[in-house]
């Protein structure tokens, strides 16, 4: 009887962790977004510590539907990339974690016409971006964008 209980415990643990792993990639967190504080910015990442910013941006890129049409302000490292399909040059704001081994980035589209590289900081330099959050799906890949972005 005791042996059965132990085996059952082991099986329950295995099943729970396995189920959790299976659900992990499709889970949408029940996260409440901080209220607009009157500044016109719904999610202000510039006031948060590095770990907090990384975790918040992780949530935004994994559960983007909650943040759609919210005004987001973030500070990170400026980066560019070229879209392989269209050849278009895209701009991004990248957040690194405390160990600087993992990074999350959000693309932004400037509100006004800007010329690269004259109107942008150098690659890897700090940039502050404020824009309306949106996302597109490319198969299973989520592309997060800040539209109408103002840069500082």
């Amino acid at each position: 009887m005791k042996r059965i209980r132990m085996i059952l415990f082991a099986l329950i643990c295995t099943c729970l962790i396995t189920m959790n792993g299976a659900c992990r990639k499709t889970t949408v967190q029940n996260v409440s977004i901080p209220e607009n504080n009157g500044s016109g910015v719904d999610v202000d990442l510039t006031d948060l510590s590095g770990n907090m910013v990384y975790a918040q941006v992780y949530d935004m890129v994994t559960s983007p539907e909650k943040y759609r049409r919210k005004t987001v302000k973030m500070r990170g490292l400026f980066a560019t990339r070229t879209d392989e399909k269209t050849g278009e040059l895209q701009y991004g704001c990248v957040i690194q974690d405390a160990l600087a081994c993992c990074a999350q980035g959000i693309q932004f589209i400037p509100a006004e016409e800007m010329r690269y590289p004259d109107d942008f900081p150098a690659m890897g330099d700090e940039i502050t971006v404020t824009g309306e959050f949106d996302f597109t799906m490319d198969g299973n890949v989520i592309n997060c964008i800040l539209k109408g972005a103002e840069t500082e």
Partner: protein
Amino acid sequence: MERLFTYLQYPFVRYALIVGVLIALCSSLLGVTLVLKRFSFIGDGLSHVAFGGIAIAGVLNVSNDMLVVLPVTVISAVLLLRTGQNKKIRGDAAIAMISVAALAFGYLLMNMFPTSSNLSGDVCSTLFGSTSILTLSIREVWLCIVLAAAVLAMYVLYYNRIFAVTFDESFAQACGTKADRYNLLIAVITAVIIVLAMNLVGSLLCSALIIFPALSAMRLYHSFRNVTIASAVLGVVSALAGLILAILTDLPVGSAIVAVQVLVFGICCILEKHI
């Protein structure tokens, strides 16, 4: 303090604190038994095995890596506790052997069959935990609560048997206790906790959660029950303090928790001389 209360409004911070406390509680309880059974390094060995399991899951392109990681870790835990009694390969040698072999093969496989463009990021994140604890979903939090409750229930239910097996396995067997079964139970619980703890402090620092609270408690108390209770309290307090410190000051979470545990151990060593 105001900053901390602001951060507590974020659900992922609350999730991290809940899961951190639960993992610390379970691992510190189990730590007393493992330290007394001379298996302090088993957490390290098993977490390296789990790292190897993640690499194998990546090579096999298994979307749910837990399908590979958990069974591999549980089997390794059982083997390690069994080979500990083997006269040819002693417990410490068996752990060292499996630990480094799993780590080496894991890294080898990850390099040969990379699953993402950021290999160093993947390795770093798995080894040191990075901010995994701050990116948990509500489902993972519930899983942790259920598992922690199961571990605690098993520990309380079988406290007397675990106590007997911990101190004198041969005597416990002579008294009719099925020591093998309880060793199996300890092995399974250890593996489950290690797999969960990898989220909190990463693979390399897992064993700190197991050994430091137990060793600190042993500086202050000398009975099994008191050491167990003190270990649980010290483990939870250290994990909470480390987590809050990391969130407020931008330190890596795993390293901050272990640093606090080392500090607590140092304080307990000083207190020991004055008690």
